């Protein structure tokens, strides 16, 4: 796997907006961003209302994913180019989610919406009409998805990478600094977790750092490449960004995203929690 297999540049994207079997998909929580202007021809996905089950705390099931992609006009043989706001958090989350359901031809637009906008590239408000398809998904590939028991068992044995900000890691904050602080969980982190904020993997314009910079970053922070790794954050989107950096860019073999993340772990009864800045 090389960088070109998983990432496309804004220049490439601009030249390939009309390429055959290529679908641009914007993924945001705030879909008004899409409506205010999106990459020409892109369809939108709402990470919360379309990718999450409306009742249970879980993803839509295989049949639901098939129905969703069919309705968006995405075929099994299409290459899906994902991008979004928040430095591609939700696009990276959707990338991981597409892989989870077996869609292999998926790539991220490096820098996402931010770089596209800062470059002054064209945005469009026209919503494309794509013909419905018959999309067929695979069973979930749980080799890239971690669940809570596995996370508890990983304490002290696997690499646990907490990608939240240092203040969330230490327990001073329960959410990123631009959000109101919710009080449903206890603050802190999973014992033995390293704190490598997702932002260290990104440049200011939202693009990913180079492979060499990424390798140096995780090695300096103490990630042991000989062990499996589980990444987590608060709700699993920032850790998708780090999962992408470790698994897709650096080619680390056994890397899972724990989408339950702190909102689940920090609410569990009886599990160990560590506070402070860690060792």
């Amino acid at each position, binding site marked *: 796997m090389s960088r070109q297999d998983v990432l496309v540049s804004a220049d490439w994207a601009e030249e390939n907006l009309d390429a055959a079997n290529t679908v641009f998909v914007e993924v945001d929580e705030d879909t008004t961003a899409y409506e205010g202007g999106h990459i020409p021809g892109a369809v939108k996905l709402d990470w919360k209302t379309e990718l999450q089950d409306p009742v249970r705390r879980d993803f839509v099931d295989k049949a639901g994913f098939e129905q969703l992609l069919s309705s968006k006009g995405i075929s099994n043989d299409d290459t899906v180019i994902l991008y979004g706001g928040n*430095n591609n958090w939700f696009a990276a989350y959707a990338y991981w989610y597409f892989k989870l359901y077996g869609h292999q031809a998926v790539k991220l637009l490096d820098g996402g919406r931010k770089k596209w906008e800062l470059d002054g590239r064209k945005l469009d408000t026209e919503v494309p009409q794509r013909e419905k398809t018959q999309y067929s998904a695979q069973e979930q590939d749980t080799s890239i998805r971690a669940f809570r028991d596995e996370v508890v068992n990983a304490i002290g044995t696997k690499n646990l990478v907490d990608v939240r900000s240092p203040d969330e890691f230490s327990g001073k904050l329960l959410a990123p*600094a*631009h959000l109101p*602080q919710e009080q449903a969980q206890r603050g802190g982190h999973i014992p033995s977790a390293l704190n490598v*904020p997702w932002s260290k993997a990104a440049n200011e314009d939202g693009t990913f750092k180079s492979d060499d910079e990424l390798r140096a970053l995780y090695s300096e922070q103490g990630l042991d490449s000989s062990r499996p790794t589980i990444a987590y954050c608060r709700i699993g989107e920032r850790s998708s960004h780090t999962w992408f950096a470790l698994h897709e860019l650096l080619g680390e073999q056994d890397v899972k995203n724990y989408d339950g993340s702190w909102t689940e772990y920090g609410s569990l009864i009886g599990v160990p929690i560590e506070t402070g800045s860690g060792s």
Partner: protein
Amino acid sequence: MCSAPEQTAELPAGTDLSKESVLVGKVTSGGSPVSGAYVRLLDGTGEFTAEVVSSASGDYRFFARPGTWTVRALSRSGNGQTEVSVGGPGLFTNQVEVAS
């Protein structure tokens, strides 16, 4: 809940300025508000903490703890930043002028 809530000059209901430190202000270029700027909150060591997009009126808002912060704005009209020293709870208002 992890994406940026709409940035407005008004604080969300339930914000308690006797307990919370809130950084607000406008991104401006030649004194005029800049909407759609990427506003980054960096901590005292220059490390990224959070990012929001400025509203139609150029406003940004962060919740932060006491300390020294840099509010840095990236926009098509250029970039700019300002330092904010937060000594305790309250509202901290600072304009960020961008220039290329």
